């Protein structure tokens, strides 16, 4: 399986809600519409809420990969739902 290339990467496993989404938003602000971001996040509350928050702000989640260490990598396209 080939993984799509992402324009940027942010790790939010070192922060907790609500900073998780703040950090994600800041990373997205650096990008133009249609560019993609890969986010590394923790299991539990972040994986339940971050994709939903991204959808609410019209970004498209395109991929979710579960890592062996219990974290996830999700790929998102800025403004992909607009």
């Amino acid at each position, binding site marked *: 399986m080939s993984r799509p290339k992402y324009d940027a990467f942010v790790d939010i496993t070192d922060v907790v809600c609500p900073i998780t989404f703040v950090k994600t938003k800041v990373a997205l602000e650096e990008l133009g519409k249609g560019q993609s971001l890969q986010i590394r996040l923790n299991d539990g509350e972040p994986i339940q*809420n971050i*994709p*939903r928050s991204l*959808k609410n702000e019209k970004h498209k989640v395109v991929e979710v990969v579960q890592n062996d260490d219990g974290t*996830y990598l999700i790929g998102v396209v800025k403004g992909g739902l607009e």
Partner: protein
Amino acid sequence: MDESVYKELKKGGFMRQIQNNKFSLRIRIVGGQLQSEQTRKVSEIADRYGHGYIHMTSRQGIEIPFIDFNDVDAVKKELAEVGLQPGACGPRVRTVTACQGSAICGSGLIETSGLAKELDAKYFGRDLPHKFKIGITGCRNNCLKAEENDLGIKGGLFPEWHGENCTYCGVCAAACPEKAIRVGRGPDSLAFDEAKCVYCGKCVKSCPADAWSGKSGYITTFGGTFGNDMAFGKPMLPLITEKKKLFRVVDAAITFFAEHGKPGERFRRTIERVGEDKLKEKLEEANR
């Protein structure tokens, strides 16, 4: 003071204090909400008749301590000016508590404040063998601790998957706390094990592609108590998806307690003594 007078006052929300002739006045508050003019009036009463402070109760209520017996009627009259009245103590249906639910909270799966008002209008203060608490919480996060109550109501969501919208991204499988969803890569690779589903709605809420929708409903629990005895309310019915059925179920539970409960016996004890199957039968009948 005459014990009968005290009982009457207690029924009407006046709790006798250890200080002679002083009462802590409990106010009837539904679902934890007060209008701003009501809070101003409560504040005024606390200044004028009490000691200038209020006490927040454990069940979303307010008590104004140090109301003198001689001021009871005057205080009741002032409360009535802003549509407030004393709460309930003793063996009867108490304040219906509620979180803010889907009207405010992103996690909420059911409307709670209006439901609390409807149940309060119907049952508040009804005499029963013992106290009877009803609590409503919007989702399985359970901020309002539904199972502590004699009758707990919790928002749930029965999920439905729409394959045509699915991108097979796997977020729902990651979000599901019960591992009821498995997603592979590519079309038709999603499997949902309905038997494992706890109606938490996390798949629907987390889905970035609108591939999950759901029918919201009520998870009910019966016989919770958290005082001298401690026990969680037990679920006895599947998710109730119609409000009118919920009302019939609530009615069946309260009627069961009124008919079978002994004075001074909490609902939990009545259920244990008379038999869980007997109650379940009545509840299932009401839910038909």
